[in-house]
């Protein structure tokens, strides 16, 4: 399987194509080996303030990794540095490396816009585009990627909505605005929108924090299903959620300088039942945070 084309030759911008290293819609069953993320000595700054301190972490392909920790420990900042979203904030900078299947995402020839197409993102608050229909929301990324064939777009939209477990609820009202859906449906629409462009990694920033328990359960179920095809990194405040959906867990805390750092990481059952650090044990036992 080919590498996704996020690196352009000689720094020149290459014409936009759909990431090619990912299975086509019809191509089912084939297990891809791509989607391995490695963070090395990653530090994230807002101006002079170091929000994330020296994090090294391997994120396994086709699995769910949960980032947990108390508020303000830099989990979301770290997450947003993986697809270079944090760069949209003025004065935000990064030191260290993030590599996806061996490609340094911060390399000088890498276009952040293309990184975000390979590493999709789902946000805390569902954010369907208010002026677009349900169909248009899912198709928007495809149009950005330069796909104009109507039949192809329809097929991908249907497939993405099915994968996001939303198709049956919206198939008769694809032309209605995305904002007409309930909160949980809106979030699944945002997930459909993210997977429509065939990313390899999906970042989720507290995707259920604005949802009720039933909608939350549906999203969690969906996350477990999507794991088969995508590498998923999820930030959550909800420890039960982390233990329910994730394969690995990384626990962060805030240092004396208010910068976040990685306390420990490991398989989720191990972190929750036999952590090596006292701080982790106190946190997962609910003694602080």
């Amino acid at each position, binding site marked *: 399987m080919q590498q996704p084309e996020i690196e352009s030759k000689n720094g020149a911008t290459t014409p936009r194509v759909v990431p090619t290293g990912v299975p086509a819609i019809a191509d089912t069953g084939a297990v891809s080996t791509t989607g391995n993320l490695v963070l090395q000595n990653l530090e994230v700054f807002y101006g002079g303030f170091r929000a994330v301190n020296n994090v090294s972490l391997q994120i396994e392909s086709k699995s769910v990794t949960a980032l947990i920790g108390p508020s303000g420990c830099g989990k979301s900042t770290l997450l947003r540095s993986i697809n270079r979203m944090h760069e949209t904030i*003025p004065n935000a900078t990064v030191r260290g490396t993030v590599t996806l299947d061996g490609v340094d995402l911060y390399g000088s020839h890498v276009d952040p*816009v293309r990184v975000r*197409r390979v590493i999709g993102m789902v*946000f805390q608050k569902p954010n369907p585009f208010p002026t677009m229909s349900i169909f248009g929301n899912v198709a*928007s990324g495809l149009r950005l990627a330069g796909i104009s064939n109507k039949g192809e777009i329809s097929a991908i939209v249907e497939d993405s909505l099915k994968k996001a477990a939303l198709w049956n609820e919206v198939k008769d009202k694809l032309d209605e605005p995305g904002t007409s859906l309930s909160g949980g449906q809106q979030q699944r629409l945002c997930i459909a929108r993210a997977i429509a462009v065939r990313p390899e990694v999906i970042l989720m920033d507290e995707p259920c924090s604005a949802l009720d328990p039933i909608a939350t359960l549906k999203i969690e179920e969906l996350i477990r299903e999507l794991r088969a095809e995508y590498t998923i990194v999820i930030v959550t405040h909800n420890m039960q959620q982390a233990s329910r959906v994730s394969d690995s867990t990384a626990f962060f805390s805030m240092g004396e300088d208010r910068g976040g750092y990685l306390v420990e990481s490991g398989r989720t059952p191990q972190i929750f039942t036999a952590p090596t650090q006292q701080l982790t044990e106190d946190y997962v036992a609910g003694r602080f945070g």
Partner: protein
Amino acid sequence: MSITNGNRFGFGSGIRADSLFRIVFGSAVVVAGLLLLGVILSMVASSMPVWSIQTPLSFVFGDRWAGEVTQPDGSITGNYGAVPVIWGTAVSSVIAILIAAPIGILAAVYLVEFAPRKLAAPLTFLVELMAAIPSVVIGLWAAGDLSIRLRDSVEWWVASTLGRVFPWLSEDPNAPASQSVFRAGMVLAIMIIPMVVAVSREVIRSVPQSLREGFIGMGATRWETIRHVVLPAARVGLTGAVLLALGRAIGETIAVTMVIGNAEGIPSSLFLPGQTIASKIASNYGEAGSPTQVGALAALGICLFAVTFLLSLAIRLVVRRSMRQGGRVG
């Protein structure tokens, strides 16, 4: 003080204070309402004499401001037609909006989406300063230096290219007019740009950041995000900004009076002098002697008020729609 005494809870005095304030604030509203009513009634009353010589229909649709003649028997005959000034108002305002809307909206997009914070604050302040220039000062500048420069650059260029095809864009190369409807539109554009910028800036800023991030997160560039998400989400509010500015252009008086030339009739070209409703009232009121003359100008005032009233009604509808749309988000 015993518990059975109501004063323990202080009621009585609190309620009295509340009703006092209700009366104070309420009467302020009543005064404002009465003033509006007073203006309308006095305009209608002043216009009455003109209805003794012609009908409202012949006034609104009359194409000539012919004036009046006192007959030997003391009766007055005459005809006042508002079409030329309505034409002048419409054309100068449309020219102004066509120039100011794109410039103002693009500037607002730059201020919100691109300008570094250190630059955005002083630039915004500059735009606000521009809005604070009294219109008579702009009129003074426009009537002198700017008018001649516009005539010898933009107008000359348009007249010698498009003007060869469209007579309404032509001018006499040997004797170009020193004042024109087109220049009034340009001056109006200068005056309303700050308003378009200020309102558009607020509208664009109020588009939730989460929508921008959502689109950027799918692999969109800044420009694609602005085009496909920010501007569509702000569309209704931007329409409101343009309509507000249009209202200002329609009513603007002094600067227009100073550059439009105040000539009767509909000019054959935009590069010739004309008149707007507001400039007509301002320039003729001092010489209006007879009650019918004053009445005709008051009738023009009613027309102007009606147009701006309808426009603000339209703005309210637009804003209400945008709020309903906003309510659906999230």
